[in-house]
Structure formats: structure tokens, C-alpha cells
């Protein structure tokens, strides 16, 4: 029977990982993400899982990839400065197609900024943070219960598509406590990476002939293959300038692009008849919901589009939305980031207004309501 | 996966005691074996190693041991 607890968002994330079957955590402490590590340092040893605090975030990311390569589901958690440091090895996991989940609890400011304040200003970095072309999946839950379930989904997507998945939350929801129900094992479906069925001698780790997601062999299970961060052939060995690189990188992008329907998830709230839509995620999405209710009370037809998948960006959905509303309001704890994407998709079909705030406090419903009225 | 195609060898066999095999495709002509051979058994054929005088070979293995390219092998016969 489902367990009921009062948990912080970070703790719910750890519980979600455990539920998904995560048995490897590699990290390095940083506010406001540290509770994820602290929680797992208590739980993982109890189930024979690995918890290791590495010397820095670069090493933590590396260890997680190593752990995953042996077949364990692996997690790391960090915040801004650490997230920047993980970028190089995140790119390695993307190119070598090794599943893993990276939690980025967004705090305030660039650089050290405001370590204990909330932010949503790493969201473009979640898409473009590492060098070179790369696929990106990033989830943005807003409620403690949702952090739990989206963490499970993050592992599923990561295993399904052989690619790292980012969970981006903000300090407010990471530290806030809410009641959550942890369903019994088996209630939420779990996905595991497909393993090769062919004999080792025939195994091609990047074989694209049978689909965009080649089966993945775990190390030490008889398939002795090569994994490299250099662009490689279907056999995994490096290739230099060659059309193969183009083909292969297109496939990496396609794994995400052509599966948007499965990956993209969002909540639509009172949008059917909305004159003004609010596009908001995380803590800003929560404020927006309150604002929508307040607006409706005043007879203003406001609605909310709350993405749970921010990358790949819900392009089609926003394009459609822009055709049906007078305006879109985008509140974010930054000086304007995700609004660029909304703008790109709305193509000027409707008004577009941002609400930016980086003073360490969340955007409150009143601010949003005021902007909604402006746009009307 | 190993051993799918063995590179062809040139074997110097005219001596009853020792056989020296060379894989030209692997030899990069670094001359390490030539210069380290205590008895000048080996020499260069433009860019590759060649056996000059196998009868001088003492089977000290210096060449095989220090060839970086898997290109030369020395065997004591039977």
C-alpha cells in the first residue's frame, strides 16, 4: 500500500530515483541540491547501491557514466556552477549514448550568484550548455509529487532513448515540503535499456539499421566493445572526416526530434476559452495557476500552459496556442530566457509579455495577474 | 573479434637454429631493431626492415622485445 510522506522536493527526487531502480549516485555537494545526495547516502547503502561523493562535479558526472555503462541506473544532482562543470562529460554521454539522469536545482544569478535563492536562468544552458550539436531532454516538474513521478519518467526516457536526461527544478520547490504518495512497486511502469540479442561477435554498438536507438550492451557481459567520445562508426571505433559523422549525428538528434509525441508532456489549465495564456514552469507555473484562478474570479479568461518537458520545446503546441489567444505571458525567474523560444514559435501571431524576476523571491500571483490584465 | 585477418609475413628461414619473421605492412622503419641488434643481423630496405645476415643471430630477442609495431618476431627452431 502506497507510502505517504511529507518530503522536500529534493527528497522526492531521490525517492523517484529509487523507485525507478537507480542504484548508483555520484555527486558533489552544492546548495540547493545537496539534499538529493544526503537522502541517497542514507538509502543506497541499504539496498546494496553505490553512493559516492567524488572530488568535484566533473568526476561525479564521469563516475555516473561509468556506473551506467555497467548496467546500473545512475543519477547525479547539482546546481548552476556544478552544472556548468558537468557540461563536457554530459556531452560525452550524449555522443556515446549512455543513459543517466542529471538533476539541476536552479539557484540565483550567474557565477556563485545567490546560492540560497531560487532561479530559472539555467534553462537555455540545459539545451545548449555543452559544445557541439547534441540531443537534449529536460523535464520541469513543479510539485513535490510531480518531482517524484517526473524523476521516474526521466529514468524511463533516458533508458528508452539511450541519452542523458536533465531534470531542472528551482530552489523553492526543491526545498519546499509537501505530502507525497509513493506508489507500490509496479504501479508506475519502468523502462530498461534494450540489450543486444545477437552474439557478441556480431554486435555493433551504434548499429542504426534497426532503428534510431541501438541496443546497448553492458560492460563485462561478454560484449567487448569500444566506447569513445570521438565521432565513431557503427562499430564504435573512431572515424575521421566522413559522411558517417553526419548520418550518425542526425540520428542522435532524431532520437529526440522524431519522438516528441512521446517525450513532450505538459499541463493545460483552462486554456480552451482563454484570451490570455500564461506559459510558465516550476515555481512560476505554480504562481501562474493561482493567478489564473484569481483572473477567472474577476471574469478574465486566463489559462495556463505548464510544460513538464521544456526540451524538446513544445513548438507545435505553442504555435497552435499563439493562434488562439490574444496574448501569452511568460513569467520566469530570469531576465528572459524561455521567452525566446515562445517568441520563435508564436511568430508574432499574438502579444507576448515577459515577467522577469531575479531578486531572490519567486514571482507572485499578483504580479502575473497584473500583467495578464495589461495584455487583455 | 580478434584475428580476423592476419597480415602476411616474410620469413627468413635459411638458418637451422632460428627463424626471423617480418610483417612489412606493420613495419614503420623506425630502425630500433636494426640499431639495437648486437650482431647486426638486421638492416634497412629503404623504409622497412630486412634480414641481412641471419647466421649472426644470437636469439637475444632484443629486436622483437622492443619493436613497437608487432613487425618482427624471432623464433628458435623446434
Amino acid at each position, binding site marked *: 500500500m502506497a507510502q*505517504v*510522506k*511529507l518530503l522536500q522536493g529534493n527528497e522526492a527526487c531521490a525517492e523517484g530515483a529509487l523507485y525507478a531502480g537507480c542504484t548508483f549516485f555520484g555527486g558533489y555537494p552544492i*546548495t*540547493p541540491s545537496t539534499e538529493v545526495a544526503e537522502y541517497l547516502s542514507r538509502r543506497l547503502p541499504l539496498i546494496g547501491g553505490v553512493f559516492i561523493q567524488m572530488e568535484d562535479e566533473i568526476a561525479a558526472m564521469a563516475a555516473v557514466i561509468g556506473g551506467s555503462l555497467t548496467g546500473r541506473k545512475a543519477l547525479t544532482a547539482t546546481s548552476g556552477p556544478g552544472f556548468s562543470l558537468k557540461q563536457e562529460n554530459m556531452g560525452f554521454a550524449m555522443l556515446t549514448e549512455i543513459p543517466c539522469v542529471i538533476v539541476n536545482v536552479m539557484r540565483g544569478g550567474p557565477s556563485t550568484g*545567490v*546560492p*540560497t535563492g531560487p532561479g530559472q536562468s539555467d534553462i537555455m544552458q540545459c539545451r545548449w550548455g555543452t559544445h557541439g550539436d547534441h540531443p537534449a531532454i529536460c523535464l520541469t516538474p513543479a510539485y513535490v509529487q510531480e518531482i517524484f513521478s517526473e524523476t521516474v519518467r526521466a529514468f524511463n526516457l533516458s533508458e528508452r532513448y539511450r541519452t542523458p536526461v536533465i531534470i531542472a527544478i528551482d530552489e*523553492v*520547490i526543491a*526545498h*519546499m*515540503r*509537501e*505530502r507525497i504518495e509513493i506508489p507500490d512497486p509496479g504501479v508506475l511502469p519502468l523502462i530498461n535499456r534494450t540489450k543486444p540479442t545477437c552474439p557478441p561477435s556480431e554486435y555493433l554498438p551504434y548499429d542504426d539499421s534497426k532503428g534510431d536507438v541501438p541496443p546497448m550492451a553492458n560492460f563485462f557481459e561478454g560484449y567487448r566493445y569500444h566506447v569513445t567520445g570521438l565521432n565513431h562508426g557503427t562499430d564504435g571505433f573512431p572515424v575521421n572526416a566522413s559522411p558517417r559523422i553526419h548520418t550518425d549525428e542526425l540520428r542522435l538528434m532524431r532520437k529526440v526530434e522524431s519522438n516528441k509525441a512521446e517525450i513532450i508532456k505538459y499541463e493545460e489549465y483552462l486554456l480552451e476559452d482563454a484570451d490570455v495564456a500564461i506559459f510558465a514552469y516550476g*515555481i512560476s507555473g*505554480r*504562481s501562474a*495557476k*493561482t493567478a489564473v484562478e484569481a483572473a477567472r474570479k474577476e471574469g478574465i479568461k486566463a489559462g495556463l500552459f505548464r510544460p513538464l518537458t521544456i526540451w524538446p520545446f513544445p513548438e507545435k503546441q505553442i504555435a497552435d496556442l499563439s493562434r488562439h489567444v490574444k496574448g501569452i505571458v511568460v513569467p520566469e525567474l530570469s531576465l528572459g530566457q524561455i521567452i525566446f523560444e515562445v517568441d520563435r514559435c508564436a511568430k508574432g501571431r499574438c502579444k507576448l509579455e515577459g515577467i522577469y524576476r531575479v531578486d531572490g*523571491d*519567486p514571482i*507572485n*500571483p499578483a504580479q502575473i495577474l497584473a500583467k495578464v490584465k495589461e495584455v487583455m | 573479434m580478434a584475428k580476423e585477418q592476419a597480415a602476411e609475413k616474410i620469413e627468413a628461414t635459411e638458418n637451422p637454429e632460428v627463424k626471423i619473421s617480418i610483417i612489412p605492412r606493420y613495419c614503420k622503419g623506425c630502425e630500433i631493431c636494426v640499431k639495437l641488434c648486437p650482431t647486426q643481423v638486421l638492416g634497412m630496405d629503404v623504409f622497412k626492415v630486412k634480414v641481412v645476415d641471419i647466421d649472426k643471430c644470437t636469439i637475444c630477442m632484443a629486436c622483437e622485445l622492443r619493436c613497437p609495431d608487432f613487425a618482427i618476431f624471432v623464433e628458435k627452431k623446434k
Partner: protein
Amino acid sequence: MSARYEIRFSGSGGQGLILAGVIFAEAATIFDTKTAVQSQSYGPEARGGASKSEVIISDKTIDFPKATKIDLMLALTPEACMKYYKDIKPDGTLLVDEDFVKETPKGTFKVIRLPIIRTASEEIGKAFVANIVALGAIAAITGQVSLEAVEKAVLSRVPKGTEDLNKKALKAGYDLAKARTNG
């Protein structure tokens, strides 16, 4: 949002007010049938100084989790009282420790003074249970959660061996408030 009730626990670093908030939220949403959200403010390095913990209680889902119109605020130190009282509703309540918070800010809100810390140190004999005494008092004043629920929550959180001590503290706070507010 009439159903929404906002409580702020404030004082200085070491006084266990975050725990108090957590216990109160647990009482409301785990051991009682309400919805609750608990949050706290972290300083740059959360080293001593004024600190606060907030609990919002409601019958329906709570979206915006921060307290902006406070129904009841507890202040155990003058610094905390001055720093945080401003968000109290005009008809809200300010609960202060009568020995440590002598001056209280002017406002239309109601002020209740209780010897919380003294009760803890003298009646219970351990100053550090002041937070639990406060919990009892707040349960009594707000009526947001049943004493039973709070007691269950307290027992589920405090270290083994200290159960009775904490039960006593809770009850003491509850009675203290009932007596003073002749409720």
C-alpha cells in the same frame, strides 16, 4: 482562498523552528486531512541570525507556497519579530515570547504574549523544547489541526527517549494558550 491559513514560525537559528514548521505541516497533512506546504528561508549560509519557517494549510491544493498574508506569526526573538512581522494580516495574530520579545510592533493585528521559553525551561526543564511548547500553543490558538494530530507528528519526529518530555511540552503549550486566551 479563504480556506488558506498561513503560519510563520520565527526566531533565531538554533531554536528548532524549521522542525516546528515541519511537524505542524505533517500534523495537518499526514495525521490530519488538510493540505499543507512547509517552506523556509535560507540565509546566505544559514548561520544563526533570524530565521523563519512557514506553513500554509488549506482544504484544497496549494499552488503558491509562500506566505504573503499571514494569519499567525510566532516570534521568539525581537530581531525576528521586527524583521518578519510586516506580512501579518490586519486581522491576523502575532504570538510572542513574553520574556524575550518585550516590544511588539504596532498594527491592527492581535498580539498574544506567552512565556514560551520560560515554560520550556522551568516547567519542562529543557529550554530546547520551546519549539514544541510553541507548537502546542499554536495548535490551541489556530485550531487548524487537532492536538492529537500534532502529538502524533511530534512523536514521529523527536529522538527516541524524549517522547514523554515532548508530549509534556506540547500539552503545556496547549494549556498555556487555552488558559491565556480563555478559549
